[in-house]
């Protein structure tokens, strides 16, 4: 049962990734304007252009280019960035940790905040407190991360400047790191100063990403908690003499969490998608920021690589959530 589920999901994931690669390949190959011409100095001859075109494979048909590119990808070769003239894979993997750290921090904030709202709302159901939580959730939910980012910049960057609103780390610390997982490394090396500097840079963009997700979690988890609270086993637990908090946490929460979990998976991919613009907004040196530069510079191999990496990341997250769901659901675990 579980094994078949895993296999089926792996198969559909592969089909999805293949689909993504085809779509992005086709889309960026109809770009007007020649990226090769842009990277050559003025006065380059047609022969130069042809030579470079051949080098990057742009002189072949799209189908041929795709097969060649796919063959390279299967061997771990994503091509060479036109702009930076470095292997795409290396460029992308260098930036990935920054985006991952930001996304995970945002996820943690969202889960903690959303979980707190949901539990409080359930505890206060029927009262004005619940109404207030609903209204807050509704507002937080309908405003996207981009706007929250701008609001946070205004409030905590300008009006009451307690956080950094630009960059990932203060310039003087950059030399201190040996890996690209700055946050992780600062914890491992117990460097509180580094950690604080990182957090003070990351907190605002992470919060901007987290607010809408926190609201969604708060709303959905509360909804399924309330539905669960009406079920007979919860009532039964009450008659046994348990306190309300205990009933919510032990009886309702484990069962209400499952539908929320599936949703968090999808929403987490949306959150990561949001890093593209949030990183731009906060000049945070991550994948998203690099992606926008790549589009503006028409760096085709790099765009391709970044999009594929995002797609792999998204499908992997969905896969993990799906398996987690199967593992946590006793119905599937013990069937």
């Amino acid at each position, binding site marked *: 049962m579980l094994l078949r589920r895993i296999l089926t999901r792996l198969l559909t994931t592969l089909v999805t990734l293949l689909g993504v690669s085809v779509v992005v390949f086709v889309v960026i190959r109809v770009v007007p304007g020649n990226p090769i011409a842009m990277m050559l100095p003025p006065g380059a001859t047609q022969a130069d252009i042809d030579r470079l075109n051949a080098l990057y494979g742009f002189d072949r048909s799209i189908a041929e280019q795709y097969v060649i590119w796919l063959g390279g990808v299967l061997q771990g070769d994503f091509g060479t960035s036109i702009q930076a003239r470095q292997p795409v894979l290396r460029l992308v993997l260098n930036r990935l940790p920054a985006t991952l750290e930001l996304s995970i921090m945002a996820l943690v904030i969202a889960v903690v905040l959303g979980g707190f709202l949901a539990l409080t709302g359930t505890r206060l159901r*029927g009262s004005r407190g619940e109404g207030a939580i609903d209204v807050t959730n509704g507002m937080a939910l309908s405003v996207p991360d981009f706007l929250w980012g701008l609001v946070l910049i205004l409030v905590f960057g300008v009006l009451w400047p307690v956080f950094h609103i630009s960059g990932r780390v203060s310039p003087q610390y950059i030399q201190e790191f040996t890996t690209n997982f700055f946050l992780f490394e600062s914890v491992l090396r117990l460097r509180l100063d580094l950690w604080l500097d990182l957090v003070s840079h990351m907190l605002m963009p992470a919060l901007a990403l987290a607010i809408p997700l926190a609201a969604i979690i708060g709303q959905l988890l509360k909804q399924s908690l309330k539905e669960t609270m009406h079920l007979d086993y919860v009532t*039964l637990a009450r008659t046994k003499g348990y306190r309300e908090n205990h009933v919510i946490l032990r009886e309702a929460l484990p069962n209400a969490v499952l539908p929320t979990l599936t949703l968090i998976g999808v929403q987490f991919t949306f959150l990561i998608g949001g890093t593209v613009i949030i990183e731009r907004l906060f000049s945070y040196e991550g994948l998203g920021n690099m992606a926008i530069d790549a589009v503006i510079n028409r760096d085709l191999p790099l765009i391709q690589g970044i999009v594929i990496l995002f797609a792999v990341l998204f499908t992997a997250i969905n896969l993990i959530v799906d398996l987690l769901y199967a593992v946590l659901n006793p119905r599937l675990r013990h069937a």
Partner: protein
Amino acid sequence: MSAFLSIRNLSAAIRGGPRLLRAVSLDVEVGEVRGLVGESGAGKSMIGKAVLGILPRAVEVVAGEIWLDGVDLLRLRPAERRRRIGATAALIPQDPLTALNPSRRIGRQITDRLVDILGWRRGAAEARALELLNEVRVPEPERVMRAYPHELSGGMRQRVLIASAFAAEPKLIVADEPTTALDVTVQKQILRLIAQMQARHGTALLFVTHDLGVVSKVCGSLSVLYGGLVVEETSVRDFFRAPAHPYSAALLAATPKYTDPAAGLNPVPAAVIDAVRAEVAAADRNWPHG
């Protein structure tokens, strides 16, 4: 108070809304099985819920007393009330499919009250649970203790719930339509089991049902409700021989009976409904809460 459970003039209403219970009074002695009968909206399960302290949040008790084992539950502080109900009363719920927590093992769900509320040691609680599963004739009780609810059939789950209800030797059990969701052949086994367990443990049983057939099998006495009002209170024998209230008689006449093709299926006459509604309205005139 002589009776083990004594409800006195209990009135409940939706907060700021209509009344659900209208000065309900009833007693259940130790060892007695009392049926609460009525159609949907009659308030029969509200009474059971009020006794167990599980009324929906929108419903509040506006007046009355619920004496359980010599204590008026409504005067206790919430924490004390919860503990007291947990220690002396139990519920057999309606739907065995939703009455067991799908993510917890059966054994834990039977023993949790003993361990967490009554302070038993886990080993002793588990031994007690096994003993009860044997008593309700669950095959392979050791395996069932480790199972999750979805691995058991509906009838088996209801047996588990009965075992769980009797685990702490409660003096009162509220059974809220415990067989409505079951097939008729399974229903017979479960009713038989409840009757046997009740007799053996000498528990007081408040049996909520809409099925007069079921009442005639398991109850000794019954209260008929309409619109939150007790319209008749009598012994089962008297009720089926000659119901005193016209509404009771009409209800009985509307109940089909396969042994008698002519009997049953007679709609409740409009005059009877009007009369009983008038009674409900009359009860409301004496209600000080508006």
